[in-house]
């Protein structure tokens, strides 16, 4: 069986777990499935995780990725954690806006403001 290519990098900051998508385009079902397995395993590593999803590398995604984000957020909230998104390209932010997902996700401009949000939200 082919190994799953790493599609995220994980960094543990003072109060947050920062997960960065490494792919520029997130489209194919198998890629989204691989991402889900990787991120869910990070979520399961700790109770009440403060996760920041960093989109700095992402230039294109499909609606299936929006579904993935909702699944991740449900898992995190079930475990009393928090989820923040940051560094979203303007064209992709527009997708969040027109689908009104800006209403259910905490979106920050950059990693610094997302990290500050983590430390002040508790």
């Amino acid at each position, binding site marked *: 069986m082919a190994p799953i290519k790493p599609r995220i990098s994980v960094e543990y900051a003072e109060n947050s777990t920062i997960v960065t998508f490494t792919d520029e385009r997130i489209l194919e*079902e198998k890629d989204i499935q691989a991402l889900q397995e990787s991120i869910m395993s990070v979520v399961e590593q700790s109770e009440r995780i403060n996760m920041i999803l960093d989109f700095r590398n992402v230039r294109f995604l499909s*609606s*299936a990725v929006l*579904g*993935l984000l*909702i699944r991740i957020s449900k898992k995190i909230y079930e475990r009393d954690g928090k989820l923040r998104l940051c560094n979203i390209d303007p064209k992709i932010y527009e997708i969040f806006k027109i*689908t009104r997902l800006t209403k259910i996700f905490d979106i920050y401009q950059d990693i610094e403001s997302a990290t500050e949000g983590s430390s002040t939200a508790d």
Partner: protein
Amino acid sequence: MASKTPISRSIAVESTPSAIVGVCRHILAELEANNFSQDDIFAVHLALEEALINAVEHGNKMDSDKKLKIDYSVDPDKIEIYVTDDGSGFKPNAVPDPRYGENLYKTGGRGLFLIRSYMDVVEFNERGNRMHIVRYKEKPHASG
């Protein structure tokens, strides 16, 4: 100013997610060649991906023996695409708005809404197995 000859093509591919990648690459290259903006290319890419994945998953029910047919034309002013699957069709007006109520929290159901948001024309045949989408390089209603 470069003037490109309008082109019209028809592609038939197997109904699999991996076949979609090649179709998109091909059509987006035509947009680049016709000097469409990056905003136009992003919009067409998003709508085309969503249309094709809907056709594979919902239209052809992931049956790789079925086919997808893509007819498209590109001219200096617009791109026009027909996506036809072998399925029994659906009723586009029965698809709920994903922005409201419990639909906002659902993990799916945003594809058609995104297509409608990013394209200037979105139409279906009566059976509901063929989608016709158009994006104009300049919006016809932009002036005023």
